[in-house]
């Protein structure tokens, strides 16, 4: 999937200014940036929620989106939530099994803990027959252990499903852990692109100190913009 010269304005304010990038199947593209850089706007454009100028080719037929909040229907069970989003019944049980959440299938989403809801929201993106998976800071509210588990889960599903994924975060370590390509967004423009070495599993942070420092230096030079 190719994005060409994506522009987005709110009145006079330019949020995205000529963003071009390529998304590959089975690969995770991570977008880093400070608050107000345009990260979530880019995701929402890919999700079909916002109008834009530029070209996206081909347009994804179906998108899986892991929001910052769980956004589950509390009065539906876990299985019903996954079905609601268009999850294929034959995939749902398999996916829940793989994630170790089969026991939650018939529980009402409103009765789950915060961590369980995040896991279900993540699984929802992988139960539908999506061309593209978008993840918007999905692990920000989690403790270290849960975060590592969820990153591993996301890695497994994306790689085994051959999905293209865009992962937004402001956490350098998360980016280094699972991304194939890291883009740094600043004032609506891509200011840095880094390709990380191939890996068979989520990378350990400590082994990529040079890449981490490079990204940190780039991030330090970016500006923090007010939210729209």
């Amino acid at each position, binding site marked *: 999937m190719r994005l060409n010269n994506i522009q987005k304005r709110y009145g006079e304010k330019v949020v995205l200014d000529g963003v071009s990038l390529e998304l590959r199947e089975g690969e995770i593209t991570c977008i880093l940036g400070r608050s107000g850089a345009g990260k979530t706007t880019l995701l929402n454009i890919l*999700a*079909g*929620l916002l109008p834009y100028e530029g070209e996206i080719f081909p347009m994804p037929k*179906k*998108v*899986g*989106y892991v*929001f910052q*909040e769980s*956004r589950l*229907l*509390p*009065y*539906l069970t876990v299985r*019903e939530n996954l079905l*609601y*989003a*268009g999850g294929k019944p034959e995939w749902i049980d398999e996916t829940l099994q793989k994630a170790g959440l089969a026991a939650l299938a018939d529980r*009402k989403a*409103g009765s789950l803990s915060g961590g369980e809801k995040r896991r279900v929201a993540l699984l*929802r993106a992988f139960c*539908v027959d999506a061309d593209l998976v978008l993840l918007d800071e999905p692990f920000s509210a989690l403790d270290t252990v849960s975060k590592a588990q969820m990153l591993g889960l996301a890695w497994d599903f994306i790689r085994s499903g051959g999905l293209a994924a865009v992962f937004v975060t402001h956490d350098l370590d998360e980016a280094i852990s699972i991304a194939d390509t890291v883009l740094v967004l600043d004032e609506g423009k891509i200011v840095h692109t880094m390709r990380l070495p191939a890996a068979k599993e989520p990378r350990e942070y400590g082994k990529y100190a040079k890449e981490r420092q490079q990204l940190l230096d780039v991030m330090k030079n970016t500006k923090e913009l007010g939210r729209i």
Partner: protein
Amino acid sequence: MKKIFKNTIFLSVCGLATLIVAWVIAYLAVQDDYVLPSPWATAQAAWALLGKGAFYLVLLATLGRAFLAFVIALVLGVGLAVIAYLYPSFERFLRGIVAVLRALPTMAALLLILLAASKWGVSEYLPPVVIGGLTLFPLLYTAAYSALSGVDKDLLEMSRVYRVPLSVQIKRLYLPSALPALCREGVAALSFSLKLIVSAEVLAFTSQSIGGWMQTANLGYEIAEMTALTAIVCLLGILIEVAGVWLVKAWEDRRCA
């Protein structure tokens, strides 16, 4: 001891008992059965009414009219609320109309409707239903529109992203989200409808109606009977509201269990 003072039923019963005590004190102060009958005379009159077969027919007729007015207002209110939700221009168009209906002096409107009804030879049973419907419509429309507008925007956005069909959104998101609030308002409106219809029947002197019987009792100085009819209507209104609220709560609890 503290638990008793937190018990809702106990406190509500205390409240009602206070009202009755106030009634007794007022009766003793007024000392005129044609102005304010005693609670025991009222209870006797109520007992006599409950022993008459005709009373139940008349009560059913009034309840039927109250229910009809409620249903008409509900169908119109919800239907227009859905259109207003989908088309913001229509919602802005309706705002003025709803404001006028909300502010309309009910009894004055009833008098106009009665005049029109007598001129056109319309059934005497219709004006109370019309006035009931007109008064309830803005309440139910506003409740339905608020319920729809109150559906979680994040869930709606999620539904858009996942391309959830509209029929599924209506069944799984809109109805479960909007119905509890609408039901609660609906229960209050149904109870209010009874009060409205009876008031309209009194003014219109509708035959075969509780309001009509009240007017007859009033004209015949049967004040105890009039008060008894009032108390019965009051009690019915409370029962409708309590039963309705309990049913809605039971449904909500079952849904989230």
